[in-house]
């Protein structure tokens, strides 16, 4: 009972210090949602919009009708350029996926490196084979099928999942590890070692506090992004398991960083941010791993982020259950056990050394 009270006191102390920092609160409540909103709306546009540049050499009623008709084509967003130089620059820079010079004949210029360039050219060619007059349009109905076996998240849900995983690591690994470093610098562990609090309470309190923050952060982002962005997270139990496992990995990493890094808070923040951002970029938190080369898809698997994103993708896009994400859960558990184990050993050693120093 006393052990529990002492552990809980250590944990509460850590949580109070963490939660009273405005930067941490911003990182928990505001930044993930804002970035998910930007990423998500852009991701949705990237997989649905066909940005096409048009330059009209000689303005005429026919040219205006063509531009209007092109703009009305499904997915097309027309950008008008005054000069040919402006249009070509826009195509080369990927500002637009394809360019159209309205003249006789119609000039088409595509960007072979742009993923939607061929689709954009296809739509222009399709329009070029019919009258641009909208009154002549025949009736077309569109039906949409769910291709469950091949589905992957896109748009806001994918961005929300990416930010959920990324910010769980940002807050716990970058911000929470700084508190541990500060404690080491200020000799807090020496003072704790001189108190009757057992070493195991200190270690458990520090680890559980971080785990708690990460779980709360994950569930908060999930809840807020469901309400604000319409994100869904699949079956509750498997999703909660994924969040808890990511939290355990992040908590272990946070303690390891806090115990192992000997530098100023400012430099530590930069170093951990670089580490966490690299893992997020590699692991598919910022863009879907579906669009990266095979080598990068394989390399991504060295990060826990990639396994977490795989699991969430399976739950959300394909309606998977625990059996579908069993491998992902096992690998995440492996990461968690390894990192938490190492973290506990290092933290115990730190408190023992502090006791000896006393």
């Amino acid at each position, binding site marked *: 009972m006393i052990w529990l009270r002492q552990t809980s006191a250590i944990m509460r102390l850590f949580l109070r210090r963490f939660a009273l920092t405005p930067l941490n609160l911003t990182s928990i409540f505001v930044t993930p949602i804002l970035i998910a909103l930007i990423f998500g709306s852009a991701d949705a546009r990237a997989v649905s919009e066909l940005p096409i540049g048009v330059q009209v050499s000689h303005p005429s009623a026919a040219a205006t009708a063509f531009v209007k008709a092109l703009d009305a084509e499904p997915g097309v967003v027309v950008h008008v350029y005054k000069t040919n130089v402006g249009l070509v620059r826009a195509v080369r820079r990927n500002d637009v996926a394809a360019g159209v010079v309205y003249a006789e004949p119609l000039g088409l*210029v595509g*960007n072979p490196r742009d993923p939607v360039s061929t689709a*954009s050219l296809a739509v222009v060619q399709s329009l070029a084979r019919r*009258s641009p007059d909208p009154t*002549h*349009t*025949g009736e077309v109905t569109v039906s949409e*099928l769910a291709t469950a076996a091949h589905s992957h998240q896109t748009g806001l849900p994918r961005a929300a999942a990416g930010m959920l995983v990324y910010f769980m690591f940002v807050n716990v690994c970058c911000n929470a590890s700084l508190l541990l470093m500060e404690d080491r610098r200020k000799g807090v562990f020496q003072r704790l070692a001189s108190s009757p609090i057992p070493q195991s309470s200190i270690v458990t309190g520090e680890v559980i506090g971080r785990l708690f923050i990460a779980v709360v952060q994950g569930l908060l982002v999930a809840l807020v992004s469901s309400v604000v962005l319409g994100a869904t997270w699949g079956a509750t139990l498997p999703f909660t398991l994924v969040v808890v496992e990511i939290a355990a990995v992040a908590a272990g990493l946070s303690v390891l960083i806090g115990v192992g890094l000997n530098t100023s808070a400012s430099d530590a923040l930069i*170093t951990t941010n670089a580490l966490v951002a690299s893992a997020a970029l590699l692991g598919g938190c910022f863009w879907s791993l579906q669009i990266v*080369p095979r080598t990068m898809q394989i390399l991504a698997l060295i990060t826990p982020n990639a396994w977490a994103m795989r699991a969430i993708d399976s739950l959300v896009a394909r309606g998977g259950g625990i059996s579908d994400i069993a491998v992902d859960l096992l690998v995440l558990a492996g990461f968690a056990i390894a990192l938490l184990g190492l973290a506990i050993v290092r933290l115990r050693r730190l408190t023992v050394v502090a006791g000896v120093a006393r």
Partner: protein
Amino acid sequence: VRRLLHDPAALIAIIAAPFLLTIITSVSLGAPPKIHTGIGIAGAPVPANAAQGDFSVRSVGAADAPGMVRDGTLAAAVVVPANGSAPVVVVGSKNNVIAREVATSIAHTISDARAGAPVESTAVEPLPLGRKPLDGAEVYGPVIAVFFVLFGVGSISRRLQSERADGTLNRLLSSPIRPSVVLASKGIVMFGVGVVEVLVVILTTTLLFGADWGNPLAVALVTLAIVAFGVALATMIAAVTKSSAQAQGLEYAAAMALVALGGHIVPVRNLPSAAQTIAHYTPNGAAIEAFGNIASGTGSTASQLAPLMLMLAAIFVVGVIAMSRIRSVLVT
């Protein structure tokens, strides 16, 4: 500078992190992602000029089309009913909006022809693009370079606050060294850090990924301008804050806001139109635009460097605020 060179964390921030992130981004986004492009047409002959760009269009059975879309064999299908009055149906996949849009466009063309609409077919000819389009490293290299300038130079201004807090600054100022010399030395180091960060990205993308940044002189001008803006911003933040923690928080917030608004996070073309406009008016967005113009090699150098004017205006405004307030940090 000596302290920086002996500080592993600083070296990670200035050299290793830009290097690593440039490699990850360039490899990941260097090759264009593949979009499944098979479209089936059922109930009508495939048009003679069926080559819809690189979209492959083939004839399929009307009964098979939905199944083929569902199992991923086709990206989308156009089903033309035998009954002339029934509408043409597009069967699309929830997962491939682009293919559905192309199929819908093809369906409209087929539907118009069925309805007997006047055909006003326009001749089409492909135009050369000239120089190759920018590749992943050329598009994302400037984004990463400017990102690190915004986040990197602030570490020096935070050191100013730390030195003020631990008394080092007071001791320094009590020596014959003038405050302006102290400030100038910090500014020069900040400037050097920013330039090194950009150079790391330029060298990484050029040597490892064959990126062509364009006219070196123009690239140098834009680099100097964005680093000068970063230094001015960091100095202003150092001037208006009272502690290293405050400076850190404000720098993070300012850098995040600029990164979000300036089009670092996602390509500007995918942002809502209002956000696209805002991106062009941020100093970092202007720098990315200028780097892109130079790398594209299109138009005159003057037109490529047009966004520089906005950057110079931002440097002037932020710089004036910074210089008017920084003295208070040095004398208190």
